[in-house]
């Protein structure tokens, strides 16, 4: 009697197996699928339900795409699994080199008094805020214990140029040691450029040392963010940027910007300032809840959603400049796009699983304490020594890099095992940042639904995926060229010879 109301029995299931993937609902009627190696596909909801219900027809349009992208397999599954395994190894290859970035905090002294300073600083003062030669020597010993064939040495402060003599002696010592070590070494100095003089420039050129400076935007914004006596920080940056480029080459100096509450209203102006000063990249960084940034309450003042509005507006402006023929790229987006669009491993300590604190980068503080990251050092300045790995004078390499502190830090940044992350479609692109969650949520694993880190990355990733599928050919080509590092090939006709 009632049989007429029953649904048709499901058609016999085609013989396919699902390969591992995660998914995210997208605007109600769609689903984003991402597999373990970062390949992605959008499906409409019915196709998705058919797929996971094992009743997607071979004849349906999505089937072959899903098979080609290794979301399902209907042949010998070992082939697909072998391919995925190889690529998974490639994606995780950042692990094999172990710690490659070594930050030397050679002094806490600084001529600026930026309220958002993520790094605590002292106003000049005596040499008790500087790294001693013995401490530097021990830090260099530890650095060379790292098995990494490439080593990046970054000098930080304070303002490291205030102790240029120390930079010189450390660089010379490292180069001397490297004659027998044979590593590939790169030096970079994070500086506000204010103390830069010609003698320093001659040395930097001689040793091929890179500079990384801070530029927050147009002069009024920059000087408000970055006060120094005379309120001339921006003018100094602009003047010394030109000198440094002249002496070292245009591409030897990069800049970082920090977003403050003041910045939020000026996305276009900030991007325009970077273009005006001839930069081909900009890194839109949100404020971090450490150091002076917390003490002054700066971090609390704006919400992640405001930052995302700012990010989207700035990205729009960046795309606009590119459309007009001025190439400029946004570095954070570039890192994420590279994970989304290429099969290669990216090396960025904040966006990897396990996270790079300690195992990708490490900080040697002026007094000899070793921290898993800059943020860990800042926590210590605030009295929280949770992520201090040891001290160059008191501990061995094995104790520092193999100790319980680093082990548990690494363990709490393996996204595949973190609640909330483990089933997130964006996992292959993201990181865990246990130090941030310890700081903001009192727990290194933390609670993703209320995490600002999570909200920021989800927001940016969603936006990038939206732009990628917008059908705007220019944006897709631009993003592809950011991701691959290959300029978009010109499609215009070739003239006959």
């Amino acid at each position, binding site marked *: 009697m009632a049989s007429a109301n029953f649904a048709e029995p499901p058609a016999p299931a085609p013989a396919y197996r699902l390969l591992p993937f995660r998914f995210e609902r997208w605007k109600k009627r769609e689903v984003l699928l991402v597999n373990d190696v970062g*390949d992605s596909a959008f499906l409409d909801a019915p196709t998705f339900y058919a797929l996971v219900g094992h009743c997607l027809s071979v004849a349906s349009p999505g089937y*072959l*795409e899903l*098979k*080609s*992208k290794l979301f399902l397999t209907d*042949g*010998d599954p*070992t*082939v697909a699994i*072998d*391919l995925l395994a*190889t*690529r998974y190894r490639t994606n995780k290859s950042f692990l094999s080199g172990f710690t490659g970035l070594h930050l030397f905090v050679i002094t806490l002294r600084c001529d600026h008094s930026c309220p958002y300073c993520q790094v605590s600083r002292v106003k000049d003062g005596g040499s008790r805020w500087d790294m001693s030669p013995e401490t530097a020597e021990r830090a260099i010993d530890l650095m060379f214990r790292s098995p990494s064939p490439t080593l990046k040495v970054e000098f930080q402060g304070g303002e490291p140029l205030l102790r240029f003599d120390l930079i010189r002696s450390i660089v010379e010592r490292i180069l001397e040691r490297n004659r027998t070590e044979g590593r590939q070494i790169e030096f970079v100095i994070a500086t506000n450029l204010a103390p830069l003089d010609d003698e320093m420039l001659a040395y930097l050129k001689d040793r091929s040392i890179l500079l990384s400076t801070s530029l927050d935007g147009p002069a009024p914004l920059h000087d408000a963010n970055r006060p120094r006596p005379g309120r001339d920080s921006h003018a100094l940056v602009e003047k010394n940027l030109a000198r440094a480029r002249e002496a070292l080459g245009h591409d030897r100096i990069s800049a970082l910007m920090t977003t403050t509450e003041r910045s939020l209203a000026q996305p276009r102006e900030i991007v325009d300032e970077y273009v005006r000063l001839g930069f081909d990249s900009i890194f839109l960084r949100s404020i971090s809840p450490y150091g002076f940034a917390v003490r002054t309450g700066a971090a609390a003042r704006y919400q992640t959603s405001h930052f995302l509005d700012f990010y989207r507006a700035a990205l729009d402006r960046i795309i606009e400049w590119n459309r007009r023929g001025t190439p400029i790229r946004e570095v954070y987006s570039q890192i994420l796009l590279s994970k989304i669009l*290429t*099969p*290669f491993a990216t090396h960025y300590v904040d966006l990897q699983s396990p996270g790079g604190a300690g195992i990708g980068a490490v900080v040697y503080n002026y007094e000899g304490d070793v921290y898993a990251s800059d943020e860990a050092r800042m926590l210590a300045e605030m009295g929280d020594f949770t992520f201090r790995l040891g001290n160059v004078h008191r501990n061995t390499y094995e104790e520092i890099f193999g100790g319980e502190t680093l082990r548990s830090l690494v363990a709490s940044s393996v996204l595949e095992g973190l609640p909330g992350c483990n089933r997130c479609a964006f996992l292959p692109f993201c990181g865990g940042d246990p130090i941030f969650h310890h700081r903001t949520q009192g727990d290194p694993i933390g609670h993703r639904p209320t995490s600002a880190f999570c909200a920021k990355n989800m927001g940016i990733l969603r936006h990038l995926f939206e732009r990628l599928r917008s059908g705007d050919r220019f944006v897709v*080509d631009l993003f*592809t*060229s950011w991701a*691959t*590092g*290959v300029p*978009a*090939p010109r*499609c*215009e*006709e*070739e003239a*006959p*010879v």
Partner: protein
Amino acid sequence: MSLRLQTQGHPSPNLRANVLGRISLVPTGREARGDTVRLLRGGDPDADLDDYAGILTEAEVPESTPAPWISHARCLDHLSAGDVVLLQPTGGVRTLFRPASPHNSIFTTDRCNSYCVMCSQPPRTIDDSERIVEHLRLIELIARGAPSDIPRELGITGGEPTLLGNDLLRIIERCRDLLPETALHILSNGRLFYYGSFARRLAEIEHPDLMIGVPLYSDLDVEHDRVVQAPGAFGQTLIGLQNLGRFEVPVEIRVVLHRMTIERLEPTAAFIYRNLPFAAHIALMGLEPIGLAVKNLDSLWIDPRDYAETLEAATFYLAARGLDVSIYNHPLCAVPRSLWRFCRRSISDWKNEYLEDCSTCSVRARCGGFFASAVERRGMLRLKVTPIGL
């Protein structure tokens, strides 16, 4: 113009086994004669024909000559000094190496473990494993030629060269030792590199300049296997490529474009980028209408003009990702101008031809032209050219 690579004559009774030698048009010193096939052109034969590896002539050879010979050869105009030839007991004369050509290959075997629908040299199931001796000898003869005759590149082809197993590794080792300046290009279906140990042993030879060209016809197993007519081949080839990549042996991916492959060319390009991004070169190749391709021409042939958009999309997809991509076997007038810079003159000189109308074309000098086999079937294939004006 296509070139003659074999001829036929009368063998001497003592030509009982294949003889390899380098052609000389003049008498040579006694110490070099073991490597030499003396080619006699008209006039009286040399007073002394002792100790040569072989004698070759369109005329007679004195009965008393001790060296094996082929006389009354039909035509020897195609042979030049320095060419390496094979004299066969049947009277066949085959050119194995021509210093003047950039396209020389060692034809390792007639056997193959696949049976591609468009194979230009259909395999034969014969036991030709004894030929390894000749291959090693050929390498020796090439290496002992004049310094200016040492090839910049040498192909290793078949059949399927990996079926030689250890003997293929011996050939590569011999090339490494005797021809260290010569780039080796091996054409293989890659299936046997499924065995990681074989890939590793190849890598361990550490040949200074070697590349393996491996065809991949689709991103989908069923489609690829249908083209190579060997179930399971897709998986073996892919794992093989991964193994070669893992041991850092440079690989080239070759996609032959025809009716059975063109539909999935774009997803195949994406599949290559995602899974085989270590490929040193990707060749998108036009079909050579010879061998099995002729038999299957109806289901394979497609005019390149009909897939111009697909070819353009796939090429730019790969180029935009930093992969080195080339288009082979396409005349320039058959592809969009945007792709000209990817087009190479890829057809081996001895089988490369143009149509009459090409003579008025302003870009003929850089155009890849046609396979001789295509020109032969120009009517059936409806070949056409549109000469480019100045």
